């Protein structure tokens, strides 16, 4: 079995995913035992491992300059100034600290133009909800891009490509990764920085094969200690312990020793394994350059500082051993150089960027307030320095120019595709994780986690598959290749409310070992769980009106049939040997009449009942009936005699039950047995139906598309197109319905079907005359108004002349405003008249043209 699976596993790795299913099937068909020859063949085959050749890409990829905006190709004067400033800073640093490695300050961009790193960060808040939190953003960046390792790995890259281009080409080195992530984080309001420094080989190459897959890490179980029983005043004393104290002590001592021994062995074992798994020594240890992201506490309710590894999207604590040193840190406003000793990695580094003794800042407009509030005494001593600083600031004040990078854009489709081409594979310690974009795979697969026994990933142990949008609501499938167990999880909403289904892949048919868990809240019968083995079936219920919570059925062997099938019922199912039903206590009944358990010994024609115990008692009453011999004959009179019944009553004082009551009870029980039997058959049928459904669903595996998903929802698309079409039609119709000049004149001559030439001419004449008249009328109207207005003004002026002397200041003002307004109105009227005069001939011409072209008149002209 093992070796066969090893082989399978190998194929998995090499072949594409589609093969897997077929492989699984063939595996099922294959026998479990292999002949020796086959084993040998397998061993031989296992030696052959194929390494796909990797071709080296030329380091400097050329870009089409045309597609970039000018800010990419040139520098603003201010940017040049900043570059000079940076150059100056670099020189000073080199001067002061000769043995320091060069700083990452002004690499060229994709157009070969030098750009300062701070301006390459372009804070952006994209419209996707998932990118608002750091973990979502980091995961996205890690998924969305492909890694380009630095070449050589101990030298700073020459080029830093803008985040917008990185998003387009979907790959980048660690600096580009960090710049993009930092842009998103700052855009979302985090206090984030790009760090340039040194890291281990595994981190630089994003080699996670020594880390446990984050999906496999067990969540730390928050086990709440069972609350200690409250000591009440009248708690009874526990019975006296009569065992020897000494012996107990000795025993516990021995136990402790054993435990310690075991612990020691376990530790040794662990150490041994850890030793084995250690990576080989790295010649470039401590020299490998890496960039990652720092998030400082304070903003966005981040409680404490942490690192984000851009390649994996995971957070690391401040004392992470993956990072070996920090050269410099920057965000979109400033650049800091680390002045602390990194001989012990990043452990214990201070990230108080305002403290200029540990972080040398580049621009004095340090937006980090000096966090250290100097004491009064220090204040006096530092007075001189402070003053110097201030002068310095005033003198050389230079703020960061805005980012030269275009706004980051990400289409909805690209965001959903997530990874380059929608697929990504990651290798962890003894595990492989494959990610797929939603709707990419036909069966709705979104990720597959394969767990292996060994580190070479050849011995497959189990496969965990996650699905989304499946119409059969399947969300997870766990296949254990060792035991052959398959566990499928479903979302609510399936018919029959299945929640979980565990079975053996070798025996998927009915009447085999399986466990089904249901969404019992949604089921009428309150079924929680159904467990089956080959000869048994157990069902658990909850919240039922009849208080049933447990049902157990034992099946017998199917009777072997000879010859033709006699009855149809024989085909139905296996004979039932025994059925057990258990009930919760029904408080409305006295305990002595409230059945706790009924056992139908079908094979022995017996029915056994146990009742609940009363609150004050410890024993329960029981009853046993022998079924009348002819109980299964239809319509037969069932006889009863007292010997068919046995009982034990806890309270001997209670009156005996009457024979009639017993008889009726027996009748009830026979009915109950029949009902129970039918229910069992129903359950069996249900299992069969569910399995049939599952097979069909597996074959079809349709995906659901949300009504809100406008891109994928074909139906909605069609509907929208239809709407658009309708709108267009509506518009067309409206245009057709334009104003008909001729209508009133046609009406005058009685809307004739066909116009004679005479009529057409007169019609045209009339129409034009009408327009002419109207134009003249309009001009006259304007003139009349003009005259009226000017007359009034004149009158007012005359009146003013007369009364000028006796007028008060207020009246005068009133007059002046009136004059102003009147003149304004006159002016407007004047303008209107001129315009009208200008336009009137045009309008006339237009109408004439229109009439000439009118289809009703055109034939005559």
């Amino acid at each position, binding site marked *: 079995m093992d070796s066969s699976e090893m082989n399978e596993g190998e194929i998995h790795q090499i072949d594409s995913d589609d093969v897997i299913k077929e492989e699984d099937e063939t595996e099922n068909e294959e026998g479990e035992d292999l002949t020796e020859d086959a084993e040998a063949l397998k061993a031989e085959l296992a030696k052959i491992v194929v390494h796909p050749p990797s071709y080296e890409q030329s380091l400097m990829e050329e870009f089409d300059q045309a597609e970039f905006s000018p800010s990419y190709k040139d520098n603003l004067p201010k940017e040049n100034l900043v570059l000079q400033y940076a150059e100056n800073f670099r020189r000073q640093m080199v001067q002061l600290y000769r043995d320091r490695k060069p700083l990452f300050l002004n690499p060229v961009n994709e157009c070969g133009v030098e750009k300062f790193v701070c301006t390459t960060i372009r804070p952006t808040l994209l419209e996707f909800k998932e990118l608002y939190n750091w973990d979502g953003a980091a995961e996205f960046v890690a998924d969305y891009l492909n890694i380009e390792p630095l070449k050589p790995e101990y030298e700073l890259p020459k080029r830093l490509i803008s985040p917008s281009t990185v998003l387009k080409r979907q790959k980048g080195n660690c600096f580009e990764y960090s710049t993009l992530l930092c842009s998103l984080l700052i855009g979302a309001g985090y206090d984030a920085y790009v760090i340039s420094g040194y890291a281990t080989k595994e981190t630089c190459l994003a080699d996670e094969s020594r880390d446990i897959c984050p999906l496999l890490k067990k969540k730390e179980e928050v086990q709440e200690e069972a609350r200690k029983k409250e000591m*009440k005043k009248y708690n009874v004393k526990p019975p006296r312990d009569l065992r020897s104290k000494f012996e107990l002590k000795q025993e516990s001592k021995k136990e402790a020793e054993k435990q310690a021994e075991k612990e020691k062995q376990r530790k040794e074992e662990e150490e041994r394994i850890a030793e084995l798994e250690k990576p080989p020594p790295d010649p470039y240890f401590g020299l490998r350059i890496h960039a990652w992201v720092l998030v400082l506490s304070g903003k966005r309710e981040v409680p404490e500082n942490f690192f984000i590894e851009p390649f994996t999207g995971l957070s690391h604590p401040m004392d992470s051993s993956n990072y070996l040193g920090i050269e410099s840190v920057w965000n979109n406003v400033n650049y800091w150089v680390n002045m602390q000793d990194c001989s012990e990695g990043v452990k214990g580094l201070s990230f108080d960027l305002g403290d200029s003794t540990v972080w040398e800042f580049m621009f004095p407009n340090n937006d980090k307030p000096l966090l250290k509030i100097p004491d009064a005494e220090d204040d006096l001593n530092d007075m001189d320095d402070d003053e110097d600083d201030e002068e310095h600031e005033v003198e050389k004040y230079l703020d960061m120019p805005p980012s030269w990078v275009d706004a980051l854009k990400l289409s909805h489709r690209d965001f959903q595709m997530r990874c380059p081409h929608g697929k990504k594979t990651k290798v962890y310690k003894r595990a492989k994780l494959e990610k797929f974009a939603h709707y990419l795979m036909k069966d709705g697969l979104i990720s597959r986690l394969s767990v292996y026994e060994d580190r070479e990933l050849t011995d497959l142990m189990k496969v965990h598959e996650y699905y989304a949008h499946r119409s059969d609501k399947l969300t997870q499938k766990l296949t254990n290749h060792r035991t052959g167990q398959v566990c499928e999880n479903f979302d609510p909403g399936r018919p029959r409310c299945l929640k979980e289904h565990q079975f053996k892949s070798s025996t998927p048919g009915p009447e085999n070992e399986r466990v089904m868990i249901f969404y019992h809240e949604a089921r009428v019968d309150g079924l929680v769980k159904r467990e089956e083995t080959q000869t048994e079936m157990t069902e658990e219920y909850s919240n039922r009106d009849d208080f049933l919570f447990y049902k157990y059925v034992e099946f017998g062997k199917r009777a072997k049939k000879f010859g033709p099938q006699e009855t149809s019922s024989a085909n139905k199912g296996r004979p039932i040997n025994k059925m057990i039903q258990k009930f919760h206590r029904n408080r409305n009944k006295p305990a002595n009449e409230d059945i706790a358990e009924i056992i139908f010994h079908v094979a022995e024609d017996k029915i056994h009942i146990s009742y609940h*115990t009363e609150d004050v008692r*410890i024993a329960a009453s029981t009853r046993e009936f022998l079924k009348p011999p002819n109980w299964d004959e239809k319509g037969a009179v069932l006889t009863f005699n007292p010997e068919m019944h046995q009982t034990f009553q806890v309270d001997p004082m209670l009156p005996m039950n009457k*024979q009639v009551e017993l008889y009726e009870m027996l009748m009830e029980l026979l009915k109950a047995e029949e009902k129970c039997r039918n229910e069992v058959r129903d359950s069996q049928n249900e299992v069969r139906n569910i399995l049939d459904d599952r097979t069909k669903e597996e074959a079809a595996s349709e995906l659901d598309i949300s009504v809100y998903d406008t891109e994928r929802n074909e139906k909605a698309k069609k509907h929208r197109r239809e709407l658009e079409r309708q709108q267009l039609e509506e518009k067309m119709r409206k245009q057709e319905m334009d104003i008909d000049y001729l209508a009133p004149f046609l009406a005058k001559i009685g809307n004739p079907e066909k116009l004679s030439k005479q009529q057409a001419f007169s019609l045209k004449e009339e129409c034009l005359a009408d327009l002419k008249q109207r134009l003249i009328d309009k001009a006259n109207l304007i003139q009349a108004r003009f005259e009226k207005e000017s007359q009034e003004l004149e009158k007012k002026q005359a009146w003013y002349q007369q009364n000028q002397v006796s007028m008060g200041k207020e009246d005068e003002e009133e007059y002046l405003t009136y004059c102003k307004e009147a003149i304004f109105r006159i002016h407007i009227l004047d303008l209107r008249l001129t315009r009208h005069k200008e336009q009137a001939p045009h309008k006339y011409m237009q109408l004439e043209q229109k009439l000439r072209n009118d289809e009703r008149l055109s034939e005559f002209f």
Partner: protein
Amino acid sequence: MSRLYDTVEPAVIDEEMLKKAVEEQGPKEEAGKIAKQEGIDFGDVLSLRLDFLNILKIDNLWEFTKLTKLQLDNNIIEKIEGLESLVNLVWLDLSFNNIEVIDNLDSLTKLEDLTLYSNRISTIENMDSLLNLHVLSLGRNQLTDLENLRYLRRFKNLKTLNLSDNPFCKQDEYKQYVIAFLSNLEFLDYRLVDQQSRDAAIEKYQVSRDEMLHNEKQAEIKKEDETKRQQELEKHKNAYVELMNGPDLFEQMYAEDKEGQKLNEMPGLEDQLHSFKEKFMQICTQIFDFGIAEHEKREEEVKSFWECVEEAKQDNKRLGMVHIDEFTETKKRMLLEMSQMSDHKMVEQYARDYNDKIQVLWDKLMGLELQLVDQLEEVIKEFERNMQDMVGTFVENVQALLSQCRDLENNHHEKMMEIAIVTLEKVIKNELDDEISDDLKMLLVDKDTIINAVSSSHDVHLLKIDNKEDDIVTRINQSLKNLIEQIHQDEEITRNRMRVSEINNLIDHLREEMDNLEVMQN
């Protein structure tokens, strides 16, 4: 419709008739056969039909205590009687009889459906206790007074009512009147009462209906207040300080003290009396508050005691059940093995083993019981001690406070004496300004009389205080004693006996089972 007497022979409900009815209406077929062989207990019968039998008098039904449904229609019954013991009755049919008065139904509190159709009833009455009534049929009777229907308002659950063919149905306003005043009705005279007609009826009788509702509401509020007060008083009584938060004790002191009342009319006494009353009341309130607080403390104590006892019993029960379950498992296994065995000796060996196991079970269960007895005994003792302490403190404090009362009374008495003598002198000298009543004058004749009066008043007061003290002390002691005795009886003796007999019963049963099996195998 009433049958004529002389045309048929009136019958009497006798054993034969009942037996016949019961057998006819009892279980059928095979069950009936078995029942007949065994005989049916009248006490088990749930429903009984005695119709068209010319019964004149309801009698001999006292045995049918479980009866829920009784049909006595189409007889010539004249009086409702003999139904007192049928307390479980839900359904009673007395239609087509000659009943004139509704009576003797008080004990049938579970009754939901009552049919008195076609009788000679002229007033609705005597049904105060039938509060669960759902369906009532009073059709074809002699009801004439519409006002009388208001009696039916007390049945809050009454949904279906039949009043057709009564004299008052001829009145025009009959239907609307009924609907307006019995607005909870859903069916009247075989018809659904729809919302429209209900609204119309209510509108018509708006004024009188509102008045009635108002009165009912008032009465209800009053009743509620009364019950609330009763509950409060009950609580105070349980705290043994009832009425101490008011002037009750003070008033009681003067209630039987006629001379004191007279003396209080003496001039110049108001201030003194007032301050005396105030101080006295203050102490009373102190006693009251203290009593309530102590009572709550005691309640808390009792509660926690019972919780712990219950817990201990539950734990013990659980252990016992575990033992029994374990044994049952072994038993099943052993029986199975035994049934497959052929060797006689081995079977005997198994039987012996089995018997030993039974003995072990008995030991275990009895051990548990003994343990519980010990535990409970200890706890009960502790509880008893604590309770006694608490009661002791309570009594002591109350006594101290009451003795303060006595001091006050003594002081008051002295003052009274002074004032009395001064007044007497004034009276003798005729210097008294105010008029005094004749009763007082009678006392102010000479020094001996007045002194006697004052001291007798004082004695009465002291007696009252003493009585109160005695009352409180004896009552609290008595109830404590009762409680403790009860606990001893229930928790120690009765419980223990029950458990022991239960265990023995179980063990006997198990042994018997084994014996039977052996006999069978042999």
